């Protein structure tokens, strides 16, 4: 059917692989998109070389925000935090494999925003930095 809600997105939304919480974790962060109530919390563990060993997200929201969190976490396992800092909007869209309008883009990028804010250890990240 419609290529937009690719099977992958609906599947990951219904059956996420990285959903959960990590305790203890090396850093964690959370944020929300007040426009639609999407909420994402991310926990990350890293090894001595600052490579991501484990990651998990919790929260709620639309299929796009939840699936993109799940796919994002999958793709950062084994990467160094330095590499993750270079993850871009395009990388997330590539993971989702779809094009998005401005409103849905915010849904798709919420997890990246949370992840980066966690890495940088900042309060709230300017959207432009994502």
């Amino acid at each position, binding site marked *: *059917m*419609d290529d*937009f*809600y690719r099977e992958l997105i*609906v599947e990951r*939304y*219904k059956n996420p692989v990285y959903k959960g919480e990590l305790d203890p974790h090396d850093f964690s962060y959370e944020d929300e998109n*007040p*426009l*639609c*109530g*999407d909420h994402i919390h991310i926990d990350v563990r890293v090894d001595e070389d600052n490579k991501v060993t484990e990651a998990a997200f919790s929260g709620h*929201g*639309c*299929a*796009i925000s939840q699936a993109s969190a799940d796919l994002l976490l999958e793709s950062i396992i084994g990467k160094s935090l330095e590499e993750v800092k270079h993850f871009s909007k395009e990388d997330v869209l590539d993971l989702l494999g779809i094009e998005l309008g401005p*409103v*849905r883009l915010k*849904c798709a990028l919420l997890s990246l925003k949370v992840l980066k804010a966690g890495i940088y250890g900042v309060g709230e990240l300017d959207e432009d930095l994502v």
Partner: protein
Amino acid sequence: MGFDKEKIIRDFPILNREIKPGKRLVYLDSTATSQKPEVVIEAMNDYYRLYNANIHRGVHTLAEEATAMYEQSRVKVQKFINARSHKEIVFTRNATEAINLVAFTWGRQNLDAGDVVVLTEMEHHSNLVPWQMLAAEKNLRLEFIPVTENGELDLLELPALLNLKPKLFCFTHMSNVLGTINPAKELISNAHKAGAVVLVDGAQSVPHFAVDVVDLDADFYVFSAHKMLGPTGIGVLYGKENLLNNMPPFLGGGDMIKKVQLRTFKPNDLPHKFEAGTPAIAEAIGLGAAVDYLAAIGMDHVLAHEKELTAYGLEKIAPLEHLKIFGKDITNKGGVIAFEMDIAHPHDVAQILDMQGVAVRAGHHCAMPLHEKFHIPATTRASFYIYNTKEDIDKLVEGLQIVIDMFG
């Protein structure tokens, strides 16, 4: 002209738009903004192509024609809501600015620390935030009529709130989420007895049913052109003449003055006192055309058509699995159906409907406190206007079935 469904649909060029291959636009988002009939678009084109000029101060032909058309639109609006005088019609950018105008002028002048302002839990942000800002500045006390589980104002609470002797009472004539049409006349009369001045947010009422500000006895009444077939960029503040006369001006600048010296000025007469700078001229003319169009159809026909669609919509949507209608059993409900689905987020619902050409809105609809009250971050909303048909609702239901198949 009465209610000629086919003609009406022909009048809106956008309804020919194909959203996706083979999927014609089904526009169910008129509560956010309405579509515009060709006559409204052409009225503005005529201004720009034939007699575009700045108004009020010009002697040349174009300026006189533009001034006459601008002021005629004011009179059309006056008649449409049955105000006593054209002086009571102030053009603003939108309903939001109209409310702010009252807050900045009447509010600052008349409200003091400890004064009570009564609002309702179903207000749009535009009828909340201006009062929150004023409350913070002046130390006012804001109180709220609760909304019942059913989605109506809990009028049992009203006497207690009016007992607080509020100076001001602001409420929406119709909720943009629940569709609730509030008993405005009764509310106003009770508030007046308690000594309150009353502002009514008519953003969702003036487009959809006949409003008579004199019969209602509203002190202030606000609405936006873009929701009633008119252009963006213009709204209306109605105020009783004696209230407007006693208010200080709002924005300063050209046109709102009678006389200016380096350090002092004398404000202009009503309504110009509240219209600073070059106004939205084309937009006023467009609004005039929209009012003519609605008046020709007849607001009673508009309301009847929407009630029919709403009844049909509720009947068709209610049986769908995983779906809960927000405010289903409201006694007096306008053409708005908001709902949640336990399997899919409203954004996903709206996007899947969009793939079928069906435009609905998803989100908090600028009514976060109402959503918070019911512990729902967002809803999907379908709303109806004169150009909608039962087939549009059938398309909506088909689209919702796809959502259910996908996420269910």
